[in-house]
């Protein structure tokens, strides 16, 4: 594992270095993209200036709400749907098709229902994320061997107790996959909605900078989003891995 990590870091460094050289030598015109080192410096300056902090706070807040709602509702729906085998089987092809639906098209409808403000963007993030949680909850529960259910019955456990002491520890890693996906989908949903029509948030700032040819604002903000999403994803990825490895040891 160790040499693979080193190689991966080396690969990333190499790509950044190539971009830097191409950009400095003028092979990539400055109008298209500034060199990576300048993007990083600009990002530092932008963050220090305090100009984008409100937007960042707004966006992260919306993402948190959307994600938390998706996890709560998705788990609940998943548990109910999984309980009825036939329903789960019937719905499964529709879950795949769901991802092809341009959720953003419902944005005007959301504004009409929830009003102007942050709520529609939260709902969009929620709608993208919730299905991933439902699908993973169903597959997590499907993987519980029958003998576990029987064991719970033999010990005379209540459903809640069995859930806490047997099902949850067993299904943990698969549920973690759902949580991980929910995080990235709520990022995608909220920022995407901000892109389309919003007056606040990082997505809006990026579009604004793009429309004004402000590359020295646009690229640092894009870098910020990628770093933020990447870090959060990486944390959940590591968490999921740890749960899985803990299970395989026992």
């Amino acid at each position, binding site marked *: *594992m160790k*040499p*693979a990590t080193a*190689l*991966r870091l080396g*690969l*990333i460094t190499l790509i950044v270095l190539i971009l830097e050289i191409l950009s400095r030598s003028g092979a990539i015109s400055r*109008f*298209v*993209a500034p060199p990576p080192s300048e993007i990083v410096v600009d990002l530092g300056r932008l963050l220090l200036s305090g100009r984008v902090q409100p937007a960042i706070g707004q966006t992260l807040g919306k993402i948190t709400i959307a994600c938390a709602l998706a996890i709560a509702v998705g788990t609940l729906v998943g548990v109910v749907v999984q309980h009825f085998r*036939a329903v789960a*089987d*019937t*719905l499964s*092809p*529709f879950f*795949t*098709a*769901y*991802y*092809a*639906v*341009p959720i*953003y*098209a*419902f*944005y*005007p*409808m959301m*504004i*009409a*229902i929830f009003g102007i403000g942050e709520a529609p963007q939260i709902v969009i993030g929620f709608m993208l994320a919730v299905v991933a949680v439902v699908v993973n909850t169903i597959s997590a529960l499907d993987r519980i061997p029958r003998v576990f259910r029987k064991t719970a019955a033999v010990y005379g456990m209540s459903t809640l107790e069995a859930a806490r002491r047997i099902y949850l520890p067993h299904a943990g890693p698969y549920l973690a996959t759902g949580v*991980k*996906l929910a*995080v*990235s989908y709520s*990022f*995608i949903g909220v*920022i*995407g909605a901000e*892109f*389309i*029509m919003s007056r606040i948030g990082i*997505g809006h700032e*990026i*579009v604004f900078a*793009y429309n004004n040819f402000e590359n020295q604002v*646009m690229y640092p903000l*894009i870098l910020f*989003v*990628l770093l933020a*999403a*990447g870090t959060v*994803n*990486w944390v959940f*990825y590591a968490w999921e891995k740890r749960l899985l490895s803990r299970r395989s040891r026992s």
Partner: protein
Amino acid sequence: MSSARNNLFVILSMFGVWQITYWAIGDLALRPPLDTIRNAWSLIGSEGFMAHLNETLQAFTFALAIAVTVGVALGFCLGMNRLAGEVGEPLLVSFYSLPKITLYPIVLLIFGIGMPSKVAFGAIHGIMPITIFTLGALRNLPPILGRTSKVLRLTRWQSVWTILFPAARPEIFTGLRLGFSLTLIGTLLGEMFASQRGIGFLLMQAIGLHDTDRIMALTFLIVGFAITASLMLLAINRHLRHGAA
């Protein structure tokens, strides 16, 4: 047969939920199902719609072709070499989960407005899931298959073509199913932001004009296409799995 009946049932209940939501919310932002179908029908017949549809289908076909070719090839490259897989997989997974919509200004700056950036946007969305599923499929193959191809002294290319690909096909196809959906949304998003033609452009235009009739009709057509294609691909997938077992 029963699965066809189930699907019909789900679709009918979706119409039911839609109608009930309409009754609950009212005319402000929704149209009832029957009106929407009528609108969609007249939209299909309207002048110029076919040109837009054609444009989108062309972009989507290109994007899907790129996503499938690159995705499967990349998956095989990473799946057949242990070290390459270990190095590449976390990178792929993290790229898969990034909000790719933030990259659209960059795609636009590189490809300009029009067909190439739509295709690029669709392909970016589709490649990752296909690669990840192909990689997973190859990794889960029983090791005896690899040993068999060694015993038979097959070249790398022969073993891919005659052993690995047929064995991994059902799972690769699952990746293609997801890739299909994501390429479609990617292409549409590309059209919404970076185009003057296509279904996505019509949708964005309708959103800008608050033309609810048209938004509903377009969304209905897109969702209908996505669900139909998804069900068909699933049927093929089941058939493949059956054949493999």
